[in-house]
Structures are given as C-alpha cells and as structure tokens.
C-alpha cells in the first residue's frame, strides 16, 4: 500500500482546556489556575487533609512525586506512612490496599501506567470489586485506583493503553474518567469519598492542560461523579466521548460548525455506571450518535453505548450509531499511533457518515 498524503481539515490542534467547572457548584472561593496533574495533586492533598484514613500507595510516589509528579510534595507533608512508596508489584499494591480497607483506611493507589494494571487484574476484579457483596455489605472497599491512561504521547509499549472496558464490564466497580483540571480535582475527591472502589482514569495527554480549579468545591453540591455532561449543545449529531478525546471532540465540533454541522458533545465522565439518561436525551434531540474512544472497537464501551442508545431511542434514530475507535490491534509503536487513535479527521469522517454524507473515505 502506498502511504497517503494526509490533509487535515483541522485548522490547528490547539489544546482546549474544556469548559472547566461546567455544572459544578462553587463555594465562592478564589480559584487558581492549575494543570490537570497539579489539580489531581490538589485533590489528593485536600482529601488527605480532610480524612486521615486516606493513604496513598504506589511506585515512586514518594520522593519522586510520581512519574507525572501528581503526588509531588505529599510525602513531605503527610509522611511516609501515608504516602507509601511500595515494592515493584502491582498485585501486591492493590492486594495490600484491600487489606488496609479492611482496617478502615481509604487507600488511593497509583498504577504507574495503564499497561501495568493487568498484573493486578485478579485483585481488582475478583477481590476489590466483590468484597462488599461477598461480605453482604459488612466490609466496604473505598479504594481508588488512579491510572494514567491512553495514548497520544509518543510513549513506549504498554504506556498508552485504554483498558476501561475491562473494568466497566466488571460488576462492583465504578469507573470514571476526567478531562479537565476542575473535574480532575473534584471527581478525584468524590472518588476517594465514595464507599465503592473506583477506577479513576487520568488522560496522560491532558496532564499539562491548564484550567481554573476551585479545590474546595462542595462535593455534594458539585456535579455527581456518575453524571455525564453536555459540553457543547448541537442539533445534528450527538458525539460521546471522555478523557483524552474530549478536547478532540470539541475541536471537531468547532470544525464541523464551520461547515454547517451542529454537533452536541457529551463528556461521559462516568464509564460505570454510564449516564445513559443524558446520552439518550441528547440522541432523542439529534437522532444520531457517534461514540469515539481510543480503545479497540470490539467489545469497547462504544458498543455498550451504541447498544443502549439503540434500545432506548430506537424510534428516534435516523441512522445506526457509529463508532470511531482504535483498531483491534495491540497499541502500535509511537510513530504509528496517529493511525490508531481517533483524531479530528476520523471523528469528522464518522460524523459525515452518520449524516449519510459519505465521509472522507467515500467522498
């Protein structure tokens, strides 16, 4: 095959910071501008200050402050018994976090990169996810597992995974994904405060995105952790995504608007439970759905969203829901990742196709 000369319809790929605290109730405090990774650190600091049962476990999270510096300064502040550098063994980390939860702690675990979560899969799906049900509600598992997730950063093998479907398919877990600094801080605090285990995905490619953050937002007044939100309203197509692709989706909506296509962008936020009500309400208005995610297509979250939307909105659908996703391949080497990841052009192509306009491929 000859390699193609790719001409993008995007005018630029400027990072957007997202809408910040859209839908969040603020307590009127002064806000500061933080990167997403600093916002996470701020959320951790506040959660630890609020509740001494909150402890952090992970590799390199102490002196180094984590490879993404999310926990920077926390060991200094809270000591090495609350910010615990662990041996290099992820099953050990999650397994001991479970034991600490038995003792009444609220452990927050850092898995250094998405690709290292599989070695602790059993402790997550067979133990953590089931302990509350297993013990008939006697032993809650308020464990938060932070996972830097996704690609687009030119990383080495096993550093760009999108394993969310594995966890969304696992009963007993909650799964959330943040896309902007305010959500990073607030949802992380909500996750830690939640009595259920939460898989908390941090999109690596957005760690450096800046935004205004109110660290002290009232958790109960804020948008609940399990709610989706409409980031941009539109009338022609509902575009659902989360995490790393939220910025791309908003860019795509802007680009489409220039061509007269009105896209409603939904940041799903919670991947388990999925806020089907918000998605379905949007699709009932637009009649069309595009879901985009980085993970492989087959049995990805896109399938679940498409299937459920079809169940709920069958009479409203003008076209079959359409998925724009990573291919069913192991994450490719960095120099090829742009041919794996959905980008603005592939999303717009999907939008065109769901509108019956053919799309790039058949123009």
């Amino acid at each position, binding site marked *: 095959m000859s390699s193609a000369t790719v001409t993008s319809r995007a005018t630029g790929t400027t990072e957007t910071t997202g809408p910040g605290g859209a839908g969040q109730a603020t307590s009127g405090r002064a806000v500061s501008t933080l990167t997403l990774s600093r916002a996470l650190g701020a959320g951790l600091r506040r959660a630890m200050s609020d509740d001494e049962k909150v402890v952090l476990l992970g590799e390199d999270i102490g002196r180094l402050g984590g490879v993404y510096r999310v926990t920077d300064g926390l060991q200094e502040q809270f000591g090495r018994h609350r910010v615990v550098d662990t041996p290099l063994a992820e*099953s050990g980390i999650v397994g*001991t976090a479970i*034991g600490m939860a*038995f003792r009444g702690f609220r452990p927050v675990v850092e898995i250094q990169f998405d690709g290292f979560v599989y070695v602790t899969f059993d402790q997550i799906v067979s133990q953590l996810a089931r302990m509350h049900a*297993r013990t008939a509600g006697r032993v809650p598992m308020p464990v938060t597992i932070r996972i830097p997730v996704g690609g687009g950063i030119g990383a080495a093998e096993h550093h760009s995974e999108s394993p969310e479907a594995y966890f969304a398919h696992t009963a007993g877990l909650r799964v959330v994904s943040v896309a902007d600094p305010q959500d990073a801080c607030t949802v992380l605090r909500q996750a830690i405060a939640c009595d259920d285990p939460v898989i908390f995905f941090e999109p690596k490619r957005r760690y450096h995105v800046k935004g205004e953050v109110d660290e002290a937002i009232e958790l109960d007044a804020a948008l609940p952790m399990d709610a989706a939100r409409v980031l941009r309203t539109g009338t022609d197509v509902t575009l659902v995504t989360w995490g790393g692709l939220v910025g791309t989706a908003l860019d795509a909506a802007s680009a489409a608007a220039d061509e007269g296509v009105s896209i409603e962008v939904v940041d799903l936020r919670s991947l388990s*439970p999925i806020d089907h009500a918000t998605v379905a309400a949007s699709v009932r208005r637009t009649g069309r759905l595009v879901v985009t995610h980085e993970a492989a297509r087959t049995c990805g979250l896109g399938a679940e969203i498409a299937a459920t939307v079809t169940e709920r909105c069958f009479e409203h659908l003008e076209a079959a829901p359409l998925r724009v996703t990573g291919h069913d391949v192991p994450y490719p080497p960095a120099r090829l990742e742009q041919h794996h990841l959905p980008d603005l052009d592939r999303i717009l192509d999907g939008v065109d196709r769901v509108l019956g306009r053919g799309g790039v491929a058949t123009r």
Partner: protein
Amino acid sequence: MTVTDAPPSDGVARLLDADGTRHAAPDHDRWLEDLDEAALRGLYEDMVVVRRIDAEATALQRQGELALWPPLLGQEAAQIGSGRALRPDDFVFSSYREHAVAYCRGVELVDLVRVWRGIAACGWDPTAVRMASPQVIIGAQALHATGYAMGVLTEAVNASGADDPDGPDLDVAVAYLGDGAMSQGDVNESFVFAATYQAPVVFFCQNNQWAISEPVDLQSRVPLVDRSAGFGIPGVRVDGNDVLAVLAVTREALDRARTGGGPTFVEAVTYRRGPHTTADDPTRYRDAAEVEAWARRDPVDRFAAYLRGAGVLDDDEESRVQEAADRAAAAVRAGCTALRDPDPLTVFDHVHAQEHAGLAAQRAEYAQYLDGFVDDDVTEGQS
C-alpha cells in the same frame, strides 16, 4: 506428665510424639506456661468438636444439604493450636478449609456452612468475628493480611507520632495458606511487602502434603519453611499434628509481630486425611499406605494419649467431650437444614455500597419480570 528430653531431630518443632510422649523444649515451653489442666482439656475438646462438625458437614454434603465441603480431617491441631493462640482483636485472612479457625473466632456453628450450602459468599460478619470471608482464589488473602497489618502499623504511627512506635502492642493479622499457595505470585509478593514494612503479620502455612492431586514436592523441592528467609522473614517449621507445638510457635510469632518484630512464616507440617473436597476422589492419586501412615500420626489421638498419660483425660471427660461434639454436630445439622434460600432480588444486594444507576435499573427490571409470574390467586411463596 511424662516429659522426655529427646528433642526432635528433624528440624521440626515438636512437643508431642505421635504416641503422645511429651518432650521438654524450653524455647517452646515458655510459651505454654499458662496452660493448666482446664486449658489442656479445652484444646482437646476444641479438636474433637471441630472434627465432629467436619464429619457432620461432610455427611450433610453427601445428603445433598450442602453443595460442597472441604474437610479439615487431620488438620485439627494445626488449626486449633494456631486459632487458639490469637487474641480477639487479631484478624484472620484464611483460605477455604479453616473451619476450625473460624470456630475459634467464635463464628456461629450454622454460619460455618452457609457458604457451602450455596446461599452466601461469606457465612459471617467479618468485622464481628475478625475473620475475613473464606478465600477461594489461592493466595490472594496473603496480601489482604499484609495490607491489614500495614494498616495496623500506620495507625500506631499516627497515634504515637513517632516513626517507630515504642514498645508497641499491635493487633496482628494472620494469613492462612496451603502448601500449594506457596507457588502463587501473590503469596510471594505478600512476603515482599510484609518484610519491607515489617508489618505485624503471621503467615501460617498448613503443609498438608497435597494441593488437590499435586504432592508438595511439585511446588517445592526444598522444605517450604526455607522460603521466607530469602525475603528476610524468619521461618519456623512445626509439627502441625501437635497442638501444643503449634500453639507455642504461633504464640511466639504473634508476640514478635505484636512487639514490632515484624512478620513470621510458620510451616505446619500436617496431612489432609480426607479428599480435597467432597467432589474429589483422592484414590486416583495417592496410596492408601500413605493415608494410613498419617492416620497413625493423628493429631487428636496423639493429644488424647498425652492427656490420658498425664491424667488430664479420663473416660468421663471423654464422654463429656464427645457429647459436646455431638451437640455441636446436631446444631450444625439443625441450623443447616433450616436455612432457607435467599430472596431472588438479593442477587442485587450489596454489589455497591452506594446506589449505582445501571444496576438499580436492572434490579427494577428483574423485579418487574418476576412479578409477571405471580399467580394472583396464589399466596406469597416461600422465604
């Protein structure tokens, strides 16, 4: 009491020979100084009772009242000796065969069989008896115990303000595991974590010689007790059919953990005299001669012989104990057969601690589905 001086020569802590002869062993005896006759009789009764409960549960399975049962026959000393060494505030993370440990923790008799009747994933409230639900995934509980112990340390540090709390008196977490479990990554990782943090945890391995059909030498060509030293954890090998020796070494290990000395690994050498579970047919993989040989080292017979020799046990006491055992068995049976199946919708209970919209919808959907079957002229069903 007959106490001889001949020490065991096989590196195994042993106070009672198979024939009930008692050896003096100052290192161990000092952990048993408080044992008066009542305490000795108590240990004996414990062993007899749990053996009887175990037999009853096996019978209940054969009669279709239980779905499955993993018998502990032969492991009574290992479980009672260690279980009785614990303090109420210690916390046990066990595998699936530790019925006698659960008994020591004060689990209600009927609660011992709930899991095996197939009506619950945990028969008791772990926070009440301080024993987690039986773990089926081999070795996973070793990490939970270690994490629990890390939490105990963290609490102590937080409370004292000092990095190394002075003269601590810590609760201890105890992980029970089998010889087969020694091969699992999780167990070895738990040794790493326990050693690194010097967590107050005791790993109590019942080497009952078999992991289903696999003999222990498939898991290790060297004694299991040797494993822990390479992780920086002291190991002790004890005759698991000698309830006194087990009690002594477990007390010592607990004391080490309690006082800030970190983890200990105990290998209790014993034997699974019955099948792996009631679904297993051990005649396919092991010889009657081996089973016979271990029957001669039986922990209950051995302790009875010792107690009789020491004048602590006589026929009257024996029948009193047997009656207690029969009562326990009857209680298990009565409790078991009276257990009703849970309400269908409990399938959805406790999956989440806080409402989960997706599951709530499924619950409502299924409730509606079930309602569709209700015969209006039939009064409400069982349960």
